[in-house]
């Protein structure tokens, strides 16, 4: 406890001026939820890299078809152009009908991305609204729980296969098939969150002030769900893309004239023994997209948790 006494000027022993406003500021901290979320997210170089990769892939796949003259479905009758190795004027080579795989890869990515995005938006949109009502309106609870039990107990794959058999294979069939089962999981997630939020003290405060239900949902509930919903969407995209590839793989995917990653993988696997590059490139692309979305989604979920903020 004993420390040498420092030399202090006697004039320091004067009462100091007291600044009340400065004292008030001692408890004040600059903190913004979104800024901290972004800062935590961007702290990891992996997240930045993968996010950049997603941005590049998405932009390129949507721009390429607009600027490139190559038709991904143009069949070349000249057998010399069939199954050409990568390089040789075709960056990814050609397939068994002489179609340019580079072009097909971008067209395929665009189709799959679009599919993923549409399903994500529908799933999250329906799931959010249904979940909010499920949580808020007590009478809906029984019905929704039953629907959840039914949908959740049917094996996903069986359901997908069944639906694609019933409906004609096509882009929207896959959208419908994946959305029918996809929304309920998100709805339940949202419902559980809403139940937690509903009786929080700040919501009781709003009720005491006579705040109408629509503003309660808009101002008191939804802002708490935004980060969760973004994460859910980010995870639905790779799942949907993967499902489309799976359906294509077992021959129930999109029609063959639609270029998608699923069809590319499906065709590539047939020639895999002779021309492995025809499977390798689409698969690598697929892996890059799904893994990036998956990791970015999870990293974002971590970053959006205020407990991880400083």
């Amino acid at each position, binding site marked *: *406890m*004993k*420390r040498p*006494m*420092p030399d*202090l000027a*006697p*004039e*320091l*022993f*004067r*009462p*100091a001026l*007291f*600044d*009340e406003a*400065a*004292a*008030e*500021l*001692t*408890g004040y*901290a600059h903190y913004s939820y979104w800024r901290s979320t972004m800062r*935590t997210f961007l702290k990891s170089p992996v997240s930045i890299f993968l996010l950049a990769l997603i941005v590049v892939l998405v932009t390129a796949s949507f721009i390429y078809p607009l600027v490139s003259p190559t038709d991904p479905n143009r069949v070349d009758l000249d057998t010399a152009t069939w199954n050409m190795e990568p390089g040789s004027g075709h960056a990814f080579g050609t397939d068994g009908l002489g179609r340019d795989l580079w072009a097909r890869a971008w067209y395929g990515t665009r189709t799959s991305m679009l599919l993923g995005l549409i399903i994500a938006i529908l799933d999250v949109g329906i799931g959010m609204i249904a979940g909010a009502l499920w949580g808020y309106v007590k009478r809906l609870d029984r019905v929704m729980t039953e629907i959840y039990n039914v949908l959740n107990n049917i094996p996903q794959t069986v359901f997908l296969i069944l639906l694609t058999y019933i409906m004609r294979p096509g882009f929207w069939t896959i959208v419908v098939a994946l959305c029918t089962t996809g929304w309920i999981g998100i709805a339940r997630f949202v419902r559980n969150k809403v139940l937690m939020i509903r009786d929080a003290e700040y919501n009781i405060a709003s009720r005491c002030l006579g705040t109408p239900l629509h503003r309660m949902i808009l101002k008191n509930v939804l802002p708490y769900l935004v980060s969760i919903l973004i994460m859910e969407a980010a995870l639905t995209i790779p799942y949907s893309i993967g499902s489309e590839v799976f359906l294509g793989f077992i021959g129930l995917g999109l029609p063959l004239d639609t270029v998608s990653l699923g069809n590319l993988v499906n065709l590539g696997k047939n020639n895999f023994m002779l021309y492995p590059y025809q499977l390798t490139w689409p698969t690598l692309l697929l892996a890059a997209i799904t893994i990036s979305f998956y990791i970015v989604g999870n990293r974002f979920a971590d970053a959006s948790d205020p407990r*991880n903020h*400083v």
Partner: protein
Amino acid sequence: MSADNILEVSDLRVSFSLRGKMLTALRGTSLELRRGETLAVVGESGSGKSVLAKTFLGMLDKNGRVESGSIIFDGQDLARYTTEKQWLGIRGKRIAMIFQDPMTALNPLKTVGEQIREAAALHRGLDRRTSRLAVIETLERVGIGEPELRYRQFPHEFSGGMRQRAVIAAAVACRPEVLICDEPTTALDVTVQAQILDLIKSLQRDLHMSVLFITHDLGVVASVAQRVAVMYSGQVVEEGSVEEVFYDPRAPYTWALLASLPQLGVKGEELYSIKGTPPSLFKEIRGDAFAPRNPQALEVDFVEEPPAFPVSPTHWARTWLLDPRAPCIEAPRSIMRLRERLSKARKDPGRAGKASGGEA
């Protein structure tokens, strides 16, 4: 180390790294726990009182570490302990702890009796039958009726107060020399709190334990402790007997704390109120941490940290106001009133006893 100190902390610095930032929880904390006494450590949230308790048991979170200073217990420096093995002989055996929430200390899947028995047998090397009897005796000792029946029950069958009694039983079952209580009554109702405080007091007497009692409630301090250490921003700013600190406080923070209590206020008058809030522990603190909130601060408080000035052999405070060069600055009015009551109480010791609800 003086012979009657069982635990002596000097100049302890503990910091945590949180996502690249450094949080200093203890900034040179010093205090001593005497053999057989109850020392209350009082402070607000963020004062570092709970971190201090955890260092006595090697229970700091993984991102925290003792930077410097020492914790001398029975000739050993606990601050240097690094492995779990070293702690094994101390934790729960010679130094035991009771937490704020009894539910976190109990395993919900095991009967209360078995949990206590395991804790006791582990440390005292008793066989099953003897230890079972010892536990039943301990349960009875902590005021749990029908101990044989209670032995077989699960934590959820206990009420909040009974659970805390069970936790206390587990803590004292191995006859520790030091009992650390970290806000053990904060989650309880006042009537239950009174019973638990009485229990801790009587156990301390009967088992000759030294108790370190951590709380934010000055009423609890007055009720359980013989001595008190006041903490602010990771430092003990004043230490002394309860009479010295309550009736003759010297540190401006202690003044402010006491003067702002509604229990000691006079109805119709403004309470003394402390402006602002405690400083962020992430920032480096220059001078006296309380200075920006202290209307009686001296200029020197913003420049240089005050050392501990002795007031009496048992009482010291960290404030430049005790420096001979400092001007004479009066304590707030309500503190002066406390002083008057002290002199009255000394003249007429029977008087204070008549108060049922205290004086205001």
